[in-house]
Each structure stands twice: as structure tokens, then as C-alpha cells.
């Protein structure tokens, strides 16, 4: 690959990796507590996986 491509790669990749690592850590630590057990007959609507 060209020198400029390598340079762009080296700038973009660590910046994105840091952002994602920060986002993932926040998402993990700020997770809401688990839902209480479902009541029988509760509607299914919510979120698929």
C-alpha cells in the first residue's frame, strides 16, 4: 500500500479503536439493572435480539 494510505490507516484506526473502547466500557458500566421476572401473559413486544 502507498505511504499515504499507511499514514491514514495509522491515524484513523487508533482513534476509532479508542472511541469504541470508551463507548463499550460506558455501555457496560451504565447497563440498567436486570428486569424483574416476566408476568405470565405479558405481551411479546419489546426488542428482538
Amino acid at each position: 500500500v502507498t505511504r499515504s494510505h499507511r499514514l491514514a490507516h495509522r491515524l484513523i484506526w487508533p482513534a476509532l479503536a479508542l472511541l469504541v473502547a470508551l463507548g463499550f466500557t460506558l455501555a457496560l458500566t451504565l447497563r440498567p439493572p436486570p428486569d424483574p421476572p416476566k408476568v405470565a401473559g405479558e405481551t411479546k413486544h419489546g426488542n428482538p435480539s
Partner: protein
Amino acid sequence: VSAGFRAVQWNRDKVIYDAILLAGVAIYIAGFAAITSRLHPPKNLPDAIDIWIRASGTAAFLMLTVILCIGPLARLDRRFLPVLYNRRHFGVLTFLVALAHVVLMLAWYLVQNGLGELVTELTTWSDYGRFIGFPFKALGIAALLVLFLMAATSHDFWLSFLTPPVWKALHMALYVGYALVVMHVALGIMQYDRSPVVPLMLIAGFGSVSVLHLIAGWRERAGDTGSATTSGWVAVGPPGSIPDKGARIVAAPDGERIAVFRDGDEIGALTNLCAYQNGPLGEGRIIDGCVTCPWHGYQYRLSDGCAPAPFTERLVTYRVRVNAGILEVDPTPLPPGTPAAIKCPDIAA
């Protein structure tokens, strides 16, 4: 490739590659669905669809992770080069699996007459200002669009039309796509599924991609430092220090790399950029008398950098000389296809 246009360049190796790929993906998805169905039998149709959503979603994530690991792995260990060879088909299949994930998600809403809920979720603009509670499906849709762009421009037509540097720069958007996928999962299922499997999958996947890129990038750094003698020529070393049928890579003062190959007593210098995808030519070998790119097997004559007939690619060449027993390269590029190789009859074997 330059000899004539064909919609898809299939050959025996690519057919085997694709067959293994398809079988692997089918076994993973079917296996995931079978095991999950046994452990948590679905109570209704939405539950059953949900299992397939998980199967296709985790498959797409793992495939994308593997794709992003292939590049640095191939640079760190040549044994991974065969996996790099047909990576584009891997990418297109990843897009199709991700598309199946989205279609299944739509089906999940449809069978419950809940499409309106999905629209509401995606158009509740105030939620876009939150972190926990962000409409994570929007991140997934954005990632799918990136994957679509990559798949749609993966054909050689676009590579040729955009030129390899622009095409490769465009395909760096895959990193953005991967970041979107990781956050789609982290802000989506990880928020309401308390199983440690999801965070562990993200940590293992994202961690592998990051560590491999860091190691490969660190090892690459040394190769970018160019140096020239006072005469302006770049020293390579004694001619015999270049492995026969192999190359040494040196950097020009501007940082671009030059591949200096030896074939017996013939020595020549070519740009390190393959004409096809700018692959690292100097990491290849001389096969059947031609310099052969390690990525996709494109070949060039050492004497003048031209691809053998009927192909038409031509590479930039460089002048070489032996000065006081040391091989040197003139870093000024010659026009593509210029004969510049020399004979060194007394070369040490």
C-alpha cells in the same frame, strides 16, 4: 485480469475458498439455532425468529471480525496469505448474512403487527441524544449501509475505475462499519441480556482486531524510514544479501517503498506497489521467472516491470548499481515498463 473482462473471476482456488466459507457459515448458523432451540425451546413464532436473528447477528459479527484480522495476520505470518486471496467474497457474504439479520428482525416485528413500534423507535429523535437508550438499530442500519457500499464496490470494475489508492481508501470505511456494529451490540442486546457471553464476545472480537493491528502497525513502522547516500542513491546491501527468488524492501527518501528482487544473477528494482490492489510486491517471490505478488498472484517481469502477455500491467522501475560491493538503488522512479535490471555474474550465492 487485464486480458479481458469477466463478471466474476472464479478459478479452482476461489471455488474451494467459497465452498469452505459457505459451509462454515451454514454450519455455524444452523448449529447456533439448533443448540439455542434445545436449550431454550421457542414458545411461539417470534421466539423462533429471535433465535435466527441471534444466529445471523453473531455470525455477521464474527465474520467481520475475521475479515479485519486477515490483513494484519497475513502481514505477520505468510501462512495466512491464502485467506487474504479471496477476502472480497468473504466480505460480500458477510453483507448478505447481515442483510438476513435485518430481514429477520423485520419479520419479527411483522408477525406481531409491530412495524409501527420499530418506526417509532427509529424516529423518536430525543432518544438520539441519550447514550443508554440510543436507538441502537439505527447503528445497525448504518453499519449495513457501509457493508453494502463495500460489497457493491468490491468488483474489479470499481477497483479499476476508482484506481487502487482511492478504492483502498474507500474500503477503510469498513473500520467505521465495525465500530458501528460493536456499538450496535453494546447498546442493544448487551443492555437487556445479562449473560456474560455478549460482552465477552465483543471484548474477544474487538480486542483481537485491535491487538493484531497494533502489532502489525508497529512492525511496519521501521520500513517507512527512507535514507539515501550523499549521491542520492539508497543502499540496499551486498547483492548476495538479497535472497535468491526473493526481495529486500527499502524506503525511498519520500517514504515510498522499493522492492529489490534477485533472480539468480539478475537484480532489479520495482515499486513495492502491485498494480492490482497495491499489494506489497516485495513480500512476494519470483515464480516461473516472474515477480509474483503475494496477495493475488499478479506477475511482472523483473527486467522491465511488465506483466507477461496477454496482460498489460506495467510497474514503475528503478535503476540499480553495485558501488564498492554494495547494491544501491536510484530512488527516482523510471516510467512504468522501463528496462532497468542488471546482471551481477560474480554474485555470492
